[in-house]
């Protein structure tokens, strides 16, 4: 069965939530789930010490309360659905492999970092390094679908390699820096140094067109077929992407400083 976990009060120290996995939790009794040990500071806390556990009538494992000190929510998840209400800490859905995370609220740094599958949807904002790589890793996000309805901080999708990353709001500086491949769709404004060092991959703009740097060059060959395939898929996102397939598109190639073969797609 699925549970609804309500945080009684913010824990005194940051809480590592990696152990809480929807599929595993569903197989436990409420008492067993309450004994789940969560690292915090130098020690651990039993889940029941900080959460009220109640059955949930939904498919999803629900976590709610003031979640700002909770890190690694849904990290490494492979299946199931995690539904979060409130602003959460760092590394939401870190290394996600499958299943779905829905966050009604905002997240701090490293959301969706190194994810390789599954889906994350955030109704609010995320901070820096969302969908990026872990320190030392060659690739950032490498699969799945990550949709942010609010704004994103700096270094969004750094070293991203595969998958679809969508931000309906504004993004900070160095968005899609060192992009290896994949699709990044941006609905709002961009900070400086967009696509810095991008090698391949596609950045699509639903809203305001950015001022591309000097290492991006316009191309005017016909990409009608590919544009229809992509635009029709992105139209389903709504917002700035609604009606995308009916708009003409301008294409820029770059980043030429790294012999980049990526592209910026700017609908007119």
């Amino acid at each position, binding site marked *: 069965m699925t549970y609804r976990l309500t945080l009684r009060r913010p824990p005194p120290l940051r809480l590592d939530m990696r152990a809480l996995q929807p599929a595993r939790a569903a197989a436990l009794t409420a008492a067993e789930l309450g004994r789940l040990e969560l690292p915090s500071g130098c020690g651990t806390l039993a889940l029941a010490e900080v959460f009220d556990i109640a059955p949930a009538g939904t498919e999803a494992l629900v976590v709610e309360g003031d979640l700002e000190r909770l890190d690694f929510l849904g990290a490494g998840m492979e299946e199931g659905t995690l539904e979060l209400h409130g602003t959460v800490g760092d590394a939401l859905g870190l290394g996600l492999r499958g299943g779905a995370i829905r966050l009604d609220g905002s997240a701090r740094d490293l959301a969706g970092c190194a994810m390789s599958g599954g889906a994350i949807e955030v109704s609010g904002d995320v901070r820096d390094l969302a969908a990026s790589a872990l320190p030392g890793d060659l690739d950032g996000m490498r699969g799945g679908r990550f949709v942010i309805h609010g704004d994103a901080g700096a270094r969004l999708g750094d070293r991203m390699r*595969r*998958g679809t990353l969508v931000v309906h709001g504004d993004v900070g500086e160095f968005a899609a820096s060192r992009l290896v*491949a994949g*699709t990044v769709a941006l609905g709002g404004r961009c900070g400086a140094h967009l696509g810095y060092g991008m090698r*391949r991959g*596609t950045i699509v703009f639903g809203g305001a067109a950015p001022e591309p740097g000097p290492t991006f060059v316009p191309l005017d*060959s*016909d*990409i*009608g*077929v*590919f544009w*229809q*395939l*992509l635009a*029709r*898929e992105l139209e389903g996102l709504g917002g700035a992407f609604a009606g995308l*397939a009916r708009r003409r598109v301008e294409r820029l190639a770059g980043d030429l400083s790294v012999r980049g*073969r990526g592209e910026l797609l700017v609908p007119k």
Partner: protein
Amino acid sequence: MRLNGVAIDETFAEAFPMKGTRIVITAHRPAWAMHAAVAATGFATSVIACGAEAGIERVLAPEETPDGRPGVAVLLFSMSTKELGKQLERRVGQCVMTCPTTAVFAGLPASAGEALPLGRNLRFFGDGWQISKVIGGARYWRVPVMDGEFVAQESTAMVKGVGGGNLLLLADDTDAALAGAEAAVEAMRRVPGVIMPFPGGVVRSGSKVGSKYAALPASTNDAFCPALAPLAAKTELDAGTRCVMEIVIDGLAEADVAAAMRAGIAAIVGRGADAGVRRLSAGNYGGKLGPFHFHLRKLAPEGSEA
């Protein structure tokens, strides 16, 4: 059994399992999609020597294609997975990629069967400039070419199809046989999931298995040759039958082939025996070789017995 004067033999068409797939070819204008489809399905009448049996299933309106351009649905069949893969790659590479403005997509959902490479190997024509893109769970390859880029879906699904469904039209003369065959093929082309791979959908050199010459796997169907009616050891023809035409049907499923045969029989019966096609028969090998048996009388239209 006689319907509207047309005799329907108590026999069945014997068909075989084949590996098949559907691809969708689109282009800037309908004519160019058709040029590509015609070329890609050329020299694909019989697996006896062509390697594949292929044909145009139907023309697609812009709203039916993945990229919103006019298109053509093509079916391709072969006896083995390996041969089908080879034929598909060659035909798409030489006849679709080369044709101005075309793009090629899978015509069956990925869940329908094993994946067969479509753009997976053709991408290397891009010499390193090719771009891969995953959109909505499917991978596409974009290969830069002189008119822009050639977009090909990575793979198409392969299904177990049915090949060799057939209908024999026994007629008074050439005019009657051609007119009947044309009408039957027209009716059968409206059935989804099937192709009639021979020229115009019709074959005049129907074959039997084997030959007196050891090197030949198939030879003329002497039992249905008017010239041999008084000579051959066994003939299926009545006096007055001067011309026989065969329509061969390949389909993605047994039910599709049956539907096409039903449409063809109905078309001939609808025209009546006075139009010159007086008898319908079918080719089989005694029922021991092919697992699919299409009994003509079970497929005949009901209520018109006379």
